[in-house]
Every structure is written in C-alpha cells, then in structure tokens.
C-alpha cells in the first residue's frame, strides 16, 4: 500500500550547505532521503542540470523531506508532451 501511494519527486538541494562530515554530495543526498524515508530509493542523482535527486515518496515523506537541512524544493514529477 505504501509503494502504491508513492509518486516521483525531484528534490533540489543546496550543495553549498553540505555538512563537512560528508565526503561526497551523493552521500549527503542519501542521508537526507533516509531521514525522511526508510525505504525510498533514488532514481537519479543530478549533478549538472540541478543539484539534487529524484525519488519516489509518499506525500507524508515528501512533506518531511522539505524540512531537512539543505533541501530547497521537493517538486512533484510532471509529464511533458511532444509538440
């Protein structure tokens, strides 16, 4: 039931706010995600287009993630169409 209620979010991170205790930003992203969800996994980690990652979360997890340090935005997935 938890899995089916999940939808994809794109999480924007302020990389400049990464604590010094993390050696790599992906570790920090992972820790941030784990603080909001035990089971969510990353779909993609972005380095150039944005700083952040995409993942599947429940609405509650998404809401919780918004308040983690360094999280700028947790934006829902959007569908685009060909023109």
């Amino acid at each position, binding site marked *: 039931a938890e899995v089916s209620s999940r*939808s*994809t979010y*794109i999480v*924007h991170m*302020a*990389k*400049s706010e990464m604590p010094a205790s993390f050696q790599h930003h992906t570790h920090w992203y992972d820790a941030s995600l784990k603080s909001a969800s035990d089971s969510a996994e990353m*779909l*993609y980690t*972005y*380095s*150039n*287009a*944005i*700083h952040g990652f*995409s993942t*599947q979360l429940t609405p509650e997890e998404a809401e919780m993630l918004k308040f983690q340090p360094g999280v*700028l*935005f947790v*934006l829902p*997935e*959007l*569908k*685009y*169409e*060909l*023109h």
Partner: protein
Amino acid sequence: TTRTPEFLGLDQNNELFPESQSASDVIIGVLDTGVWPESKSFDDSGLGPVPASWKGTCEVGTNFSSSACNRKLIGARYFSKGYEATLGPIDTSKESKSPRDDDGHGTHTSTTAAGSVVTGASLFGYAPGTARGMATRARIAAYKVCWLGGCFSSDILMAIDQAIDDNVNVLSMSLGGGMSDYFRDSVAIGAFSAMEKGILISCSAGNAGPSAYSLSNSAPWITTVGAGTLDRDFPAFLSLGNGKNFSGVSLYRGNSEATALEMTPFIYAGNASNSTSGNLCMMGSLIPEKVKGKIVMCDRGVNARVQKGTVVKAAGGVGMVLSNTGANGEELVADAHLLPATAVGQKNADLIKSYLFSDPNPTAAILFEGTKVGIEPSPVVAAFSSRGPNSITPDILKPDMVAPGVNILAGWSGAVGPTGLAVDSRRVAFNIISGTSMSCPHVSGLAALLKGAHPEWSPAAIRSALMTTAYTAYKSGQKLQDVATGKPSTPFDHGAGHVDPVSALNPGLVYDLTVDDYLNFLCALNYTETEITSLAKRKFTCDESKSYSVRDLNYPSFAVNLETGSSSKSTVSKYSRTLTNVGPAGTYKVTVTQDNPNVKITVEPESLSFAAANEKKSYTVSFAVTGSLPTSTLNSFGRLEWSDGKHIVGSPIAISWS
C-alpha cells in the same frame, strides 16, 4: 527536409557556411523519442572523426547495439527510470528499452536538425527531392526521454544533465509541459544550467494556438520557436455532384499512380451515427449500413485526424473529407491517410455541408494532385502555433521567432507507419508531419550552422542574430499573415519574424547576454534566494541596494505592459539595451515604426557608432502614452530597427494594456 533548405536560402548560399572543422565539431543533442539509426539521414560519409570534445556514448538496449552510432549519430542514450517508476516496467514487446525510436518523432526532429544529404527522398512520391537537415555537417546525439506513456520530468532532467556532461553545443527539445514558474519547470531549470555552459537551447513554442497566452517554454534563456508554412502544398480537390469543386490537401497514395476516387455517394458523419458527437468520427461511432461504399465527411477535433480515416474505413466507407472547424480555420494539414481523403478549410467545409444537407442524393469525387511548390503567400503563421503574450513573464516577448513547421518531410522510424496508427502496416523512410516540434529542430540546426561559422558567439548572440535578421514582410512588402485569421500576424504570433539564416550569418550587431544578466532578471522577478539557488545551483543573493528591472534584460525584443487608461503623466516606461558589434566598423541609425499614434516611442541616442569588433554601445527606449486610449485598445505593435545601410538589426515591439 526536401524544401526548407531552398525556402530558407541555404541551397543558394552554401558557400557562406563553412565546411570546415568548426562546422562539423558542432554537436546537437536532441531530447525526444530516440532514433532510428538505419535511416540514410544518419549516413556519416565525408565526416571526419568524432569531435575530440565529445564525451558521450552509444548505449545498448533492446534492438540497439553500440554499432548503431557512427560519425554522424555520435551518441544515443535513453532515460526511463522516471517513466518506469510511475507506469511500471517497459513492455519490450511494445517499445524498445533502448535509444531506438519506435515512434518516428525523434528521428524526424533529429534528421531535420542535422540529417545528412539523401537523394531521392519522398513520402509515397509526395515532396520529392533531396532531403537534408539544416546543419548537414553537425553531429547528432539522441537522448530518448519520451515513451508510449509520455515524457517524464525526472527523465528529461537526467537527459539534460547527461547532455551537458557529454558536451553538446545545442539542445533541441520539441516538447513542453504547460505553464509553470521557471523554478518548477524541469525544462526551464535544466535549460538554465545548459545555458550556463554555453549551450544554446531551442524549444518548441507549443501547438495550443491560435489562443493567446498558449506558449510553452517561455524562459528567456530558451529560444522559443513557433511554426510557419512552406511554399509547398499537396492539393487534393473535392468535386461535388452539383459541379462545384473545392480545394483541400492530402498525402494519400493508393496503389495506382493516377489516384482518384470517382463520383461516389457522399454523407455527413453526423447523419451516419447515433452518437451526439458522431460528426467527429470517433471509434465505433459510425453506422456501417449508412456509411458503406460512401465518402464520409468528418469534423476535425478530439481524436487524431488519421484515426478518423480508419474509423470511416472500418465502417465500410471508401473515402473521407476532413472538415476544419472554427478552431482551425483555413489551416490545412496534410496526412498520409489509409483511405482516399482530403482535408478542407472551414469556409469550404461550410459550403460542402450546405450541399450535403440540401441535396437528396449527394455525391463527390476526390482528385489527388500531388506536390505543388511556389505557393503564395508563404510563410504564413500556422494556426496551431502557440501565441503570446507570455503568461509567465509578460515583459518578455515570446515566441522568439517562427520557422518551417507545416508539412515537413524528414526521416522516420521503421517501426511504425506514417500515420503512427497500429493498423498502419506501411513503412516509410521519410514522413511528412506538422507541429512546432518540426520548427524547433530547424532552428536548432540553423543555430548549429551559426555556431560553426562563429564559434565564439554565445547562445544569446546566436539567438539575437536569428531574431534581429528575421523578416516580418513578404518580398511584396505585405506583412506576414496568420492563417488563423487571414490577417497580418503580430509579434505575439511570430515573435521577431520568420527566420532568415543567410542574413543571420552577418547580423552586424547582437544583443548579448551573460549568466549574470539572467540572474539579475530573476532578481527583477522578485525570486526568493531559494528559488534562485535552485536554478543557479549556487548561492546568489540579489543586491538590496540595486534596482533590478525585467525591462533591462538585454533581450532582442520589447514587450511593454501598460495599464488601461494610463496617460503620459502617469506612464513612461524605459527600457535599456546594449548592442555588441560583430561586424565592421560603422554608424547605425535608429528608426521606429508603430501602429498606435497615442504612444510616443523615443530612442536615446538615435545613432550609435562602432569603431571596432566587440565594441558595446547602449541605448534607452521610452514608451509614453500621449493621450487617452480607448478601453478597447488591448495591444499595439511596432518595430525598432538599427541600420548602417548594410545591416538591419530589427526588434519587434508589442505593447499591451491590462
């Protein structure tokens, strides 16, 4: 494409564009439905080694090996994690989990941008000629982000992320996702990062025209492209039993060369259905007993145009007349229907319907005339092309320009027929389709040509060159037309005008922009620090002591927004711009034309002298209301031009009252 190189003057001016290394070092990344690598348009004959700057790869997957890439198609990747997370695992019996294009759209757009020269191209003999992309020496990298179930933002963002890493020079995206603020729109966000790396991003404006405020991809760091027609048509005449003839268009090709449908009983779909929407020829809506052996007239809308033909055919009909309604006006889009069919404009459709409703035994015949070129006027703005004003930032005029996007022939996937319908078992090397999806890669390819000729130019300089040299009038002097109204089009329809790549090669002056200019623009929009940080990927604080204005973004066009009832006492809007000399030394003088005598436009100074290349000179434009405006006046338009006698550096002006 078999006509646009001629239509754009590329054929006659080949020598102006370099065949040098710089031209073949330009890499165009195309985010779309993937690629059909077997297309002759990806032949790499005559191309040198893959550019040293290229860091991408050719990913393997369903029906796609790394050998699919060559010196033309230098990269191919696919992004499906977001798609699969939402819709479940890809069914590889229905679509390839690889860069392979099962749809055709991605092959069409990528070959339009930079396909190699292919002689003897046509679709069933229609639009015959030598097909080529705009930048025949540029390299193509395909990024598959669109699948049967759509294109998801997490995949698009990753493709942009990867394309930046791969070192593409131009990004072509013929897709859109509605209208959201820039920091919520993955295309705008990704495009910002690409722009920071010197990549030009060309996007389709959308097909939601002719409604106003219907644009997608309106961020100022994106080049937004609307669609116009070519001077080519595919006439298919409808002859009625009363002796009257009506013109339409079609890409139908039967087995015989002299294709025609003889005089046949004719019926309106709305009278051959029990459904209230029977006129639309929706699936299963026609009564076979009433349709069998007849030509059926269907109204356009709701379902796909080509699907209406299959519905008629399935019900036993032998032909179809596709009728435009008010939404499409007189715009005729040709389709490769599976049965003899022709599409007619609204005016003709009304006359045909009056015959159908008044004659007890109506009959009709369809005669297919093939391909005709030299159609005038052309270009005209396509009715479907999305229109301004810009709903996100009204002070930035969009679209930026129009380019060919109606009935464009380009490469196609071997996995699908030209209609894209499952029942269409025909396979073609080239297909003819329409949309701003088709105009966008024209500009992507032209931008690649300019990048090859002027490697030092920024993306903003390249866009400026394309915009300031675009034309807004025919050779006769008449203004460009909008097919939706039959009247002159406005900057909200055509932006700066129709692209003219030969003039763009030597624009004289450009309006350049840096990353800081765009950051200042975000400050002017009162974006929060968080919003700016998410776009810029670094901490950027707007200077509270500084006065930011959207009006000062060094954009090559002017969108002026005034309040209704404003008078000269209350409204003087000032805009500042800076021109960079990219030509010889010279003195440019300004002229302003506009259609509203109650607005006074003043340029200061009226003359700018440039002594050397890369010299910059600034000017201001003031818009003052000199009298009371009638409340019905919503928009007025004008044009500002700098000229040294050889170059004309033109900017459109759109003034709106709200």
